[in-house]
């Protein structure tokens, strides 16, 4: 019972499948075209052919039950839209990610119920922009985010009863005690606003907030444990 589903086997679906495979995450591929299904199977993936307008087929593969993430990335935009809407209907908590290259398409996708739309061209353009303007920063962040460096970025939810609760972000001493860098904090509750940890921030830590820290893997682990213990 895999909790990740990729709908479609387009160029972008291929890339997503490759990354998920690299990261050892299990997933299945669903397509509405036989030749695409064959292609995905030939490349060693667990792929199935479905009729997109039959909800029970989606249910058969776990949407609305055990599937937590759905990538709606087939080459046919209208089918993506249809599947997004159907899946959202089946499961309000499903995380649906779509890729579309067009602002109008993106809006419709979000209206149909996608949680996040990623525009490949914007991402690509951003990448070049950063290579031009901030090559060093970009290389470092790239390594932290995507590649196997010993420095990692992590987001840690603050548990109930943690020793941090009530302390101001500045005075909590996280950076000094655990040799981490606190990038910022996202407040829980309704106002999901991300605050960067600059010297202007005056915020007390509350349960349900999410801390974003950068540091060595073992330091992050240590901090995570400490946060949970008390």
């Amino acid at each position: 019972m895999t909790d990740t589903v990729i709908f479609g086997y387009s160029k972008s679906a291929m890339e997503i499948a490759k990354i998920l495979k690299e990261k050892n995450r299990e997933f299945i591929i669903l397509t509405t075209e036989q030749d695409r299904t064959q292609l995905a199977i030939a490349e060693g993936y667990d792929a199935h052919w479905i009729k997109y307008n039959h909800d029970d087929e989606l249910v058969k593969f776990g949407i609305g039950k055990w599937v937590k993430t759905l990538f709606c990335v087939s080459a046919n935009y209208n089918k993506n839209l249809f599947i997004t809407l159907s899946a959202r209907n089946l499961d309000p908590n499903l995380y649906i990610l779509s890729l579309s290259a067009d602002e109008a398409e993106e809006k419709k996708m979000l209206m149909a119920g996608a949680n996040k739309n990623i525009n490949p061209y914007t991402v690509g353009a951003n990448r070049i922009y950063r290579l031009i303007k901030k090559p060093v920063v970009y290389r470092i962040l790239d390594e932290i985010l995507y590649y196997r460096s010993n420095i990692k970025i992590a987001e840690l939810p603050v548990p109930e009863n943690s020793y941090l609760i009530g302390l101001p972000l500045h005075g909590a001493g996280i950076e000094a005690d655990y040799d981490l860098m606190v990038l910022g904090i996202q407040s829980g509750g309704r106002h999901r606003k991300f605050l960067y940890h600059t010297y202007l921030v005056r915020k007390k830590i509350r349960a349900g907030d999410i801390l974003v820290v950068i540091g060595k893997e073992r330091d992050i682990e240590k901090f995570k444990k400490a946060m949970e213990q008390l």
Partner: protein
Amino acid sequence: MHIKERILYFSYQLASSKKYKELKRRVNGILNDPAVLEKRYFDYFMIFLVLTTIMILILEIKNKLPSWVYYFEGLAVFIFIVEWLGRLWVASDAHYDIIKVQENAEYQKVTLTTWQLIKPALINKIKFIISPMSIVDLLAILPSYRALRFLRFLLLFRLFKVFRYTENINNLLRVFIEKRFEFFSLIILFAFMVFFASTVIYIFEGSGENPNIHNFYDAIYWAVVTITTVGFGDISPTTPQGRFVTIFLIIGGITAISFMTSIITTAMAEKLEMIKSNQVFYEIGKLKSFIVICGYGRMGKVLAEELRLAGEKVVVIDPLAEESLQAQKDGFYALHADGSDIDLLKQLRLKERVKYFVALTNDDATNLSIILSVKTISKDIILFSRAVEKNARGKLLLAGAEEVVFPYEAAAIAAYEHLGQPVAFSAIDEILHEYIEPVIDEIEIIPEMPVVGNDLRTIGIKKYRLKLLGVVRGSENNKFYFHPRKEVFNVKAYDILIVIGAIDDIAAFKLHLYEELS
């Protein structure tokens, strides 16, 4: 023999003189090269002279002008003469022509007469003298010579000189040269109709029937006035036969004129686009440095916009008229051209002014060709490209791209990261933008800065309210030191500090580092 040797000696001397070459290059620039800024001022000045001397010509018909006016005119004519001599000078390199002839002769072991030696050089100069523009210049000068005063109306030719200084009008007039075949056929048609109509009217009304037609010249005059639909009415046909001819002449005239108008308007519309791009070229010519983006598709558009927000000057080149127009509407310097055109790239003076060049057309072969063209011009330009098909990436890298982005892969990575750590990912995504605060930035330490050798904690990072993500050590093969805070960490030359903070604070901190320099 004596003269010949002198000429040769002089030619070799000129050829070896750097100063002479430089002077000639500069003069040529001012006279002929639209990319040279001084040319514009020179052109304005010359237009001013032309217009004022023509004013004098008009005013003196009815008024008695004070004598200083004529001194002024004399001065203007003197400047015209100097200008013409200058053009004559830069039109060809006489000393090279002479040397070439001499070297050829030496090679073939023949002795030349003085005449043979200077003949090609002279021919080149004469070629310039009889070129249309030179003749216009001469006609603007010669009638000022009082002995030729009866040619005074030729002074009006100075007006044509104005065209010399206005590239745009020049371009429009070139329409007549480019469409000469169409015009030629039309003129033949016109001439035929005029001749036919005037002959007919002359036969029917030339022998006293019409009091206004005295000779064949009157008949031609009437035919032209009628065929062009001007119709003054000073001569009009009086006989039924004459009127019959007139009907056909008018219909034929309207047809031919509409035909001519359409030729001219379409040709001019084509030219107008060229004039516009010339204007863009001129604007680009004034930039000190810029980034070139080839291809204004979805990716190019986003990138151009981001770079502009970061304060960069962006030049967009796109072979599609529609997209280059869009880029222009969006406020970029847009050229409707092929990005792999080496001549174009040379004209843009990439080598001196461009550090980054981005090839984003939606065709891998085109991108490849662009990369190779740019690399031919300069090895130092850093190129980025996009791959439309993933397997093209290797080839694009091989051609010399610094990095090739495959949008779907970048998006897939982003999608994956979003899944795992959405908050962290958007946080990082946002600080990388330059227009949402806070920002992340890199600060390079140069050897002359006094902070070199000091402990990182003492150089004022905290004072300027910045956070340090880490240090990239240039002297250790760009090793990354993350968030050094416990142990003593001394700043070294060529370190790059990666800091997060408000834009103003980062700028102030940079200033602080540089201030200590002086």
